[in-house]
């Protein structure tokens, strides 16, 4: 009968054990930390890949497909890594080594370690349905938690956007809106409620977000976006703008500011049964002025307050905007850049038209002629 100690000794005599200097001399080596998740979370070697011992056999070929690649395995004290090196040898790996003294000696000798960023158990539970998706995972969720998204408008489009961005764990949500919640809003602006009637929309939306997800830091701007305050508001640092404004002057202002601040804008607009969605990525695609060089005359630009809107339409369009925002924040998928998505709720029909950057665009073109804020109200009233 072999004891553990005897088995360990025999295994150590059969595998290659290298010290830190020898390990670092292995050109192009892949370092694998085979410890348990809780040990990894307390710090690991820089550049190491975490493959817990229990998953080593099943995962190693995915991590190191070429069996001649030098591999340095480490655990806490070079015992588990000795068995791991033996296993890799049996799997045909010809250049696997166990790090003598393991993580303990590495750290004691002043070797560099890094602390991994991981989600707390509470966050892992809250965002588990995101983490399960390979395209997002824990890394993608951390990106969402690090993201800062500015909403222009807390109305029809801003309502679903604020709720779904909050639910997704966007770390900071800014909301710009000067309005007060009134009864006519409740037909579609689902972030607000009877309890918040008569209160500022930014406060009402903040309340709804905080009731849904305390992870989100909500920054409110109870003001209308103007040429006078746009620099201050954008100066607070935003990765992304979700534009749910309700008028042309604000749309053109948001556009110009986003180009100058290099912030992508997820654009959405609605009227009656129809909606438009696109993403303006400064200098990588068209901007709002490339798409619509000038606004229509006032009689062809009724607002939802004048012409009406199907209540669920902003829910659909605002959710499509949020989908784009989450993709951009997580760095996944194909953003709606250079494509204008049109939705017709009566026909239940989506169509798409191609939009291109205009090299002669006065703001994002090759030779811009508008380089500072203009009088947007006057521009849209011409």
């Amino acid at each position, binding site marked *: 009968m072999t004891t553990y100690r005897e088995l360990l000794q025999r295994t150590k005599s059969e595998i290659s054990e290298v010290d830190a200097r020898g390990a670092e001399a292995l050109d192009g080596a892949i370092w694998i930390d085979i410890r348990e998740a809780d040990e990894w979370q307390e710090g690991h070697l820089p550049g190491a890949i975490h493959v817990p011992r229990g998953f080593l056999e099943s995962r190693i070929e995915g991590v190191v497909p070429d069996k001649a690649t030098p591999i340095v395995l480490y655990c806490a004290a070079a015992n588990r890594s000795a068995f791991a090196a033996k296993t890799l040898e049996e799997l045909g790996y010809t250049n696997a080594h166990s790090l003598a003294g393991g993580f303990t000696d590495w750290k004691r000798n002043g070797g560099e370690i890094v602390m991994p960023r991981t989600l707390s158990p509470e966050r892992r539970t809250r965002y588990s349905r995101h983490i399960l998706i390979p395209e997002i995972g824990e890394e993608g969720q951390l990106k969402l938690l690090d993201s800062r998204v500015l909403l222009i*408008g807390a109305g029809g489009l801003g309502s679903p956007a604020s709720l779904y961005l909050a639910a997704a764990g966007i770390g900071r949500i800014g909301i710009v809106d000067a309005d007060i919640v009134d009864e006519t809003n409740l037909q579609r602006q689902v972030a607000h409620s009877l309890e918040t009637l008569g209160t500022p929309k930014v406060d009402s939306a903040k309340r709804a977000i905080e009731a849904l997800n305390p992870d989100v830091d909500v920054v409110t701007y109870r003001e209308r976006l103007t040429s006078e305050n746009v620099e201050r508001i954008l100066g607070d640092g935003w990765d992304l703008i979700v534009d*749910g*404004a309700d008028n042309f002057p604000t749309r053109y202002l948001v556009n110009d500011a986003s180009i100058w601040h290099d912030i992508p804008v997820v654009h959405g*607009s609605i009227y009656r049964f129809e909606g438009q969605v696109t993403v303006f990525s400064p200098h990588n695609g068209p901007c709002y002025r490339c798409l619509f060089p000038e606004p229509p*005359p006032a009689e062809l*630009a009724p607002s939802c307050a004048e012409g009406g809107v199907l209540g669920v339409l902003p829910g659909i369009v605002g959710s499509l905007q949020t989908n784009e925002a989450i993709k951009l924040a997580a760095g996944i998928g194909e953003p709606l850049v250079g494509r204008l998505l049109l939705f017709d709720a009566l026909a239940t029909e989506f169509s798409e038209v191609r939009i291109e950057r205009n090299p002669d665009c006065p703001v994002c073109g090759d030779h811009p002629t508008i380089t500072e804020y203009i009088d947007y109200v006057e521009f849209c009233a011409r």
Partner: protein
Amino acid sequence: MTTVRVPPVLRGEAGGVRELNADGATVREVMEDLTRRVPALGTRVYSDGELQPFVNVYVDGEDVRTRDGLDTPVGDTSTVILLPAMAGGR
């Protein structure tokens, strides 16, 4: 016969319909035919032989400004979308 998609803000000019038919081998011909059939709509988007600058015109999903403008060819089965900007968000 080409299908012309009418935007919601111009449906009043088009008798409330979402789509109309018009004939023509180019955008110019389609606009002229549209103006003959539905003058209220046609003159809103096309006047003095020019497209109104606030209306985008797409032929099969392509902006005619990035093609040949009014000379952009239009096929029998093409869809022409007339699209002014909409600002609504509330």
